[in-house]
């Protein structure tokens, strides 16, 4: 076990996988000399050289397209999108190309690439640098989607992502880079695609991922103090979605809350709510409760920004209302 930050764990995953697999290359804006906008690729260019760590021009569509071509010809590119907010420029390459190539071409070939990016609020970076856009990806068949919440997952999920045969969108949270936790880099990680039950409680199940996992875990003991014991599930990957880990807890508790930073309407929260409502219909005492980002852009004002997404206090408050 070592203590390390989420940032360092990501970096270590890149290093270890690059050592393990010569075909891994990293490409993106400022990933080389600058070391990555959030420092995840710091010094990698010195360790692996300019042919394996490529600083690119500011060309998001071209970067993702190039990664696709590289992946189809034997490399395992890890492309970095500096902010998930820039995914709009890449949606054609991601959605029409990467996601569909295996299918359209009848299974001849896959696109084993990772698109590493980060999202979320917390730095009052404004409407175009604070979004949580995983909903677009989850709504696109063919793209796998991983969103690590813990330092351990930052390491293990990223290494696993780099070994997937299909494109993986890997979204980090900008508010987690300095999170420090114990991590065992050598252990056998849980299977790719499995959710993680981080807390057991018999009254309510909270299904979440990414930074909101920590918010849920922060709210849980306070809820416990009022007599509400919550199960907290970290999905880890949204595609594949491990519903079977969720199911028994909903059946047992009869109450489910889904928590996400992405906007409410027609996104991840909607999917989780729909799935639980369909699959566990007879067991629910209350409607599944969606605690999500408000259906608005994020303001640069720190006050408005903070109020735009779920907080531990909000989770606690809403959970308590579920029992009134």
């Amino acid at each position, binding site marked *: 076990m070592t203590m390390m930050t989420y940032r360092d764990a990501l970096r270590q995953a890149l290093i270890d996988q690059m050592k393990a697999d010569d*075909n891994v*290359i990293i*490409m993106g804006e400022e990933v080389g000399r600058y070391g990555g906008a959030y420092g995840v690729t710091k010094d990698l260019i010195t360790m692996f050289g300019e*042919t*394996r760590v*490529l600083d*690119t*021009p500011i*060309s998001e*569509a*071209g970067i*993702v*397209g*190039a*990664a*696709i*071509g*590289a*992946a*189809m*010809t*034997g*490399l395992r*590119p890890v492309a970095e999108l500096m902010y998930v907010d820039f995914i709009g420029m890449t949606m*054609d*390459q991601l959605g*029409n*190309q990467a996601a569909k*190539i*295996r*299918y*359209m*071409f*009848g*299974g*001849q*070939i*896959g696109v084993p690439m990772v698109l590493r990016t980060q999202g979320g609020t917390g730095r009052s970076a404004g409407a175009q640098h604070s979004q949580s856009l995983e909903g677009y990806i989850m709504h696109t*068949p*063919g793209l*796998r989607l991983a969103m690590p919440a813990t330092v351990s997952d930052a390491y293990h999920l990223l290494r696993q992502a780099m070994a*997937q*045969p*299909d494109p993986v969108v890997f979204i980090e949270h900008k508010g987690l880079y300095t999170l420090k936790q114990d991590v065992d880099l050598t252990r056998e990680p849980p299977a790719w*695609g499995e959710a993680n039950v981080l807390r057991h409680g018999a009254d309510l199940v909270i299904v979440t991922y990414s930074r909101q996992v920590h918010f849920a875990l922060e709210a849980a003991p306070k809820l416990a103090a009022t007599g509400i014991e919550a199960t907290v599930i970290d999905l880890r990957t949204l595609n*594949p979605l*491990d*519903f*079977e880990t969720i*199911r028994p807890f909903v059946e047992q508790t009869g109450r489910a809350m889904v928590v996400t930073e992405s906007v409410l309407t027609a996104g991840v929260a909607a999917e989780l709510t729909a799935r639980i409502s*369909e*699959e566990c*219909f*007879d067991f629910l005492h209350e409607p599944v409760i969606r605690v999500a980002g408000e259906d608005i852009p994020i303001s640069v004002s720190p006050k408005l920004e903070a109020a735009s997404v779920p907080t531990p206090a909000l989770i606690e408050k809403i959970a308590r209302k579920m029992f009134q």
Partner: protein
Amino acid sequence: MNSARTDDQEFSGTNSNLFALYRTMCRIRSFEERVGELFVRGQSAGSMLHLSIGEESAAAGVCAAMEPKDTFTTHHRGHGIFLARGADPARMMAEIGGKEAGYCHGKGGSMHIADMGLGHLGANAIVGGGIPAVVGAGLSALHKKTGAVSVAFFGDGATGQGVLYESMNMAALWKLPVLFCCINNQYGMGTRIDQATANPVLHERAAAFGLNAQTVDGLDVETVAETAQTMIDDARKGIPGFLVVDCYRFYGHARKDKSPYRDSNEEETGRQKDPIAFARNLLIESKISNDAELNSLDVDISAEMDATIDFTMGQTEPPLTSMFRDVYAPDQPEPEPLQTRLSRVLSRELPANGGH
């Protein structure tokens, strides 16, 4: 041009470069005519069939300059290129017919055909969509030291797409073994090139990024082939290029389009830029071949291409169960079919595989 022959050569075109290029062009045109026919018979999958008649020299000339290890992507009008690369026309036709026996098991069709064996990284129904992939293929070639070049084929219309410029810039910056091949058939659907840009000399844009850039007249397939050869050789050495092949789209944008937006005089003139007629004349004038030989070639090709239709008509559509296959690699379960899911939900059953 290498087409002049000396009298002591044996009288058979088959060893001549031009003859080979000519044959490739004839096969393309003949194939495309059959695609039209398949459509008329109602046997093509979809109505979106883009024929490359009039553009054969680009396909034949550039592909002749490629090595087997090279890779490429094409646009939506890519039948000719794939054929010139050595594709099996029967499997192509079957794919265009949406049949299981096609290159992509009938899931891709005319606009999404690919074959890894031949280095075909895929046709594309998105204008410009396949261009950046060659940048990545170029990176692979560098990284793995394969010596392979990757060629992006696309139309003049794709010069409207931003991703082309992003790709050119990266290729030039990293000195990648890449060739951008713009088949300028003067039209993007109903829009003539001068209606789509103020400067139709397209290769100048590439030069401004530092690419080795030029335009060649597609009338003469030999010139196309030689220019392509030089540029692909250069690309292999790390001097990426941009080659415009000037030609004319003889017919409508897609099989159904009657091109009402252009007048018949223009079409008349345009169709005079026929690389096949030009090469045929040259073959005869330079005595590489003669009418009889070329006519018998036509017959052979017709027979070969007729057979692709017969083959396709006899093939079946892919089975329904294949629908859920290949969305993901086999390690990830296929998406649960809607009906299975709903039956399960309504009868309160668990998933068959326990969800995993």
